[in-house]
């Protein structure tokens, strides 16, 4: 690791002020990607701003509309274990409980995960699958608008994610096929029927551009919520990632398989 300056602000305003001061600054949320990257000398920020001690970023609360608001600095373990999340959106709690391993889940945070937007991360699937809203220190935006590509988001350089608000769906489930080595998602499908009856099928881990929706599956499920309805729907292999763990063809197959399993699990 290269030398860096560590900051531990207590307020969002202090964090934002520090962020504005330098170009070579990184926000530290849970550090599960940033710290290994720095240790391998692949990142060399002059300053690291630790967001884990800002009260405004903490806490899980029931939102006004019957959904859940999760502070950006909430860990995966807290989401997985939250009575509120388990009651209102059990699929989200179980997704959080399958991220990485216990160490990762006790350090990694939802804000860090979505701001990093690793194409193999699990949370983007839940955000898009549930039509969540991302709140920053400057604005609110839909998950569809937030994720813009591989490791890319709509966040401005001086913008900090503060919370994510998930509406409670009528039914939802997440089916993940983990990479055997890293246990990241190789194809994770979040399928949901939202309270307004709309259907969402969001795929993470497989797509070249990060999380994406499968509109053909969503349409098929609108008229017939069952695994059979989407059995014949294939995503284009040409849009899938390909690496030593899974070719694009194989990932395309996994998307179909996991989509069916997610729909079946949602009941």
């Amino acid at each position: 690791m290269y030398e860096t300056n560590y900051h531990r602000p207590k307020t969002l305003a202090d964090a934002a002020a520090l962020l504005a001061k330098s170009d070579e600054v990184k926000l530290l949320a849970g550090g599960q990607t940033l710290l290994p990257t720095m240790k391998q000398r692949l990142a060399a920020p002059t300053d690291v701003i630790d967001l884990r001690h800002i009260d405004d970023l903490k806490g899980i609360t029931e939102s006004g509309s019957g959904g859940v608001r999760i502070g950006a600095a909430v860990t995966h373990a807290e989401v997985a274990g939250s009575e509120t999340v388990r009651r209102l959106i059990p699929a989200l709690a179980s997704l959080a409980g399958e991220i990485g391993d216990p160490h990762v889940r006790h350090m990694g945070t939802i804000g860090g995960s979505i701001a990093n937007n690793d194409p193999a991360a699990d949370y983007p699937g839940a955000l898009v699958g549930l039509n969540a809203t991302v709140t920053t220190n400057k604005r609110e935006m839909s998950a569809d608008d937030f994720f813009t590509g591989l490791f890319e988001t709509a966040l401005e350089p001086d913008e900090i994610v503060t919370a994510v608000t998930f509406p409670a769906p009528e039914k939802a489930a997440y089916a993940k096929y983990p990479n055997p080595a890293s246990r990241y998602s190789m194809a994770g499908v979040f399928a949901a029927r939202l309270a307004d009856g709309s259907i969402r099928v969001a795929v993470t881990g497989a797509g070249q551009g990060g999380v994406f929706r499968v509109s053909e599956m969503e349409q098929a499920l609108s008229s017939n919520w069952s695994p059979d309805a989407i059995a014949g729907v294939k995503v284009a292999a040409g849009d899938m990632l390909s690496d030593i763990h899974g070719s694009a063809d194989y990932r395309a197959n996994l998307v179909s398989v996991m989509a069916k399993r997610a729909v079946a699990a949602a009941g």
Partner: protein
Amino acid sequence: MGVDGIGARVKRKEDRRFITGKGRYTDDMTAPGMGFAAFVRSPHAHAKVKSIDASAALDMPGVEAVLTGEQLVGDGVGNLICGWMIHSKDGTPMKMGAWRALEPEIVRHVGQAVAVVVADTLAQARDAAEAVVVDYEELPAVVDAVAALEPGAPQIHPEAENNLIYDWEIGDEAAVNAAFDSAKHVTSMEISNNRLVPNAMEPRAALADYDEAEEHYTLWTTSQNPHVARLVLSAFYNIAPEHKLRVIAPDVGGGFGSKIYVYPEEMVCLWASKRTGRPVKWVADRTEAFLTDAHGRDHKSHAEIALDENNRITALRVKTVANLGAYMSLFSSSVPTYLYATLLSGQYDIPAIHCNVKTVYTNTTPVDAYRGAGRPEATFLVERIMETTAREIGMDPAEFRRKNFITEFPHQTPVIMCYDSGDYNASLDAAMKAADYANFGARKAEAASRGKLRGIGMSCYIEACGIAPSQAVGSLGAGVGLWESAEVRVNPVGTIEVLTGSHSHGQGHETTFAQLVADRFGVGTDTVQIVHGDTDKVQFGMGTYGSRSGAVGMSAVVKALDKVEAKAKKLAAHLMEASEGDIVVEGGEFKVAGTDKSTPFFQLALAAYTAHNMPEGMEPGLKEGAFYDPTNFTFPAGTYICEVEVDPDTGKTEIVSFVAADDFGKIINPMIVEGQVHGGLTQGIGQALLENAAYDESGQLITASYMDYCMPRADDVPSFNLMTTETICPGNPLGMKGCGEAGAIGSPPAVINAITDAIGNNELEMPATPERVWRALQAAQPAQAAE
């Protein structure tokens, strides 16, 4: 004997310090004024080193020195060597390319060191290493051994034309060809054995301390054989004469073979300590471990087996290309020859075997012995072709094996080995019973009702441990003898120290070796201390690898105990005025049989050291040493049966049952043996399903971290069903055969045989990743897979 003797499940004495974080590893060692080393490594697989500019690095804070290969060669540090001479079939010696600890001219694999920085702190050393500017001229690289042999392939060493190190053969080719000419059935197949990275939990490390006044070096290092390291560093690398070099291998966190060898980094630390005048420490990070620890396996073979009209095997013909990487590591040449082709007879009575092995340089990390070393490659080949043949001829795989089993011992195979003992039917029977082999069909049908493809596969492995005797291995090209030494020191108060040349790096020697003493004298294991891993304490030893510590290391302890017991009995007879023949040792006392006379062990020890009343001519003290050179290899064998369920949608394999019936001969501590088998099976399953060291065309290791190199985890393996069937090894005093590698040797073919049975397609390479299985399934059952 007491409860702690031979056969007792004694909990490991060493675990208290390990599980409470009190182990003492090389990285825990410090020396006053210690500097830290960071290596400058090649990012290229093959390149000329045009220049090295260290000026910027030398100006950085805390930097003591930047040393290069030119200085190393100039100081007379010797090249790294391979210590086992193999001759090609035309009689020419193997072609050993020059390997320098820091390469001044041409780098031949990614990660090869070209310079080292020594600085006050590790961070300073690493910062400075990045500032060393190396000007490389890239050369074309080749990573595949078969491709490296082709005309026009990049030439890696001037010494080895077409990258061929040797073209070796064993067996009677004419007899084999004749058997094939008259064969009733021939099965032939291509068989690959995937390259693995050892991944010991503790990475390699060294702390070298040069004492200028004494011209003496001390090296703390992660070694499985500190005396061999000292011998090699002294005799071949010109670091220092042996009496001026102390090598200490303290607690070592796993080796699996990878810590047998002397590597460039450890040598460089010694040299740099003298150069800089301060102790130098280096600890590999995980990336360095992936790039520089000797890899394992990497064979490509063509195998053919011939049967007569009664389905008896008449011959086996094998051609193997083995990838040795960029340099010949210390024992690399022996692995694909005498540790591989000599095991190709398996458990079977095969009249004629011929094997040709070509070993090849490539622009990859050097390959050497890794848990099993040659024997997993042989077992995989034999047990895959046995299974395949049984399927081709429509015979039950168990019955086909049984029909060809060796049943009489000793049995001389056509490939050097003379099997001394075994009962292959016993282990096959035990495994089949435990696996409920007879009712597999019902389980397959039940799995099918859940949409799963269930398969069963077996492996009847044999391996050879305790490589010996020294005279024989010498005649085969080994540069060392393979005996072991031990010393038993009874202290004046009756506690006992056992000094052994074996080295424990996870095997539990501190417990099992103490059990030998407890068994012999009826004392508690808590009164016994095992001393190992320090060339200043232990006279000499060959170390631990090849499952030799039991059969060879313990036998040396037994011989030393024999001497101690004999002297103690003489003294006891003298003290109790009895006849020596009437003295028995029971419950920690020397007793005169048939009387109530006895002398406690501690009292006898004290008498030996006070020496007030000794028999005529007896020397004071109670300490004896012994050297033990075995008469033969030992031959552990057994049957493994694996049952899998494959998810046809994803290709994912779940191992639902794994039975291991092993014959390890006499067992000292069943709990420790089970632990060895658990670990071995997990590594073997890792090879079969998960692990693969993959290079891209340019020679970059693309599985250089745990993000991509898939290590087995607890949820990848089932709860193992273990049992042993015992035949006593006649070749050593304890009757032991060895258990350290069997699991890794025997399990991969059982797993692949089970998966290929499940999916109905025999074309499947290791690792059988979900995608490979899914594709093989599609090829076999396109309709089902496409569903």
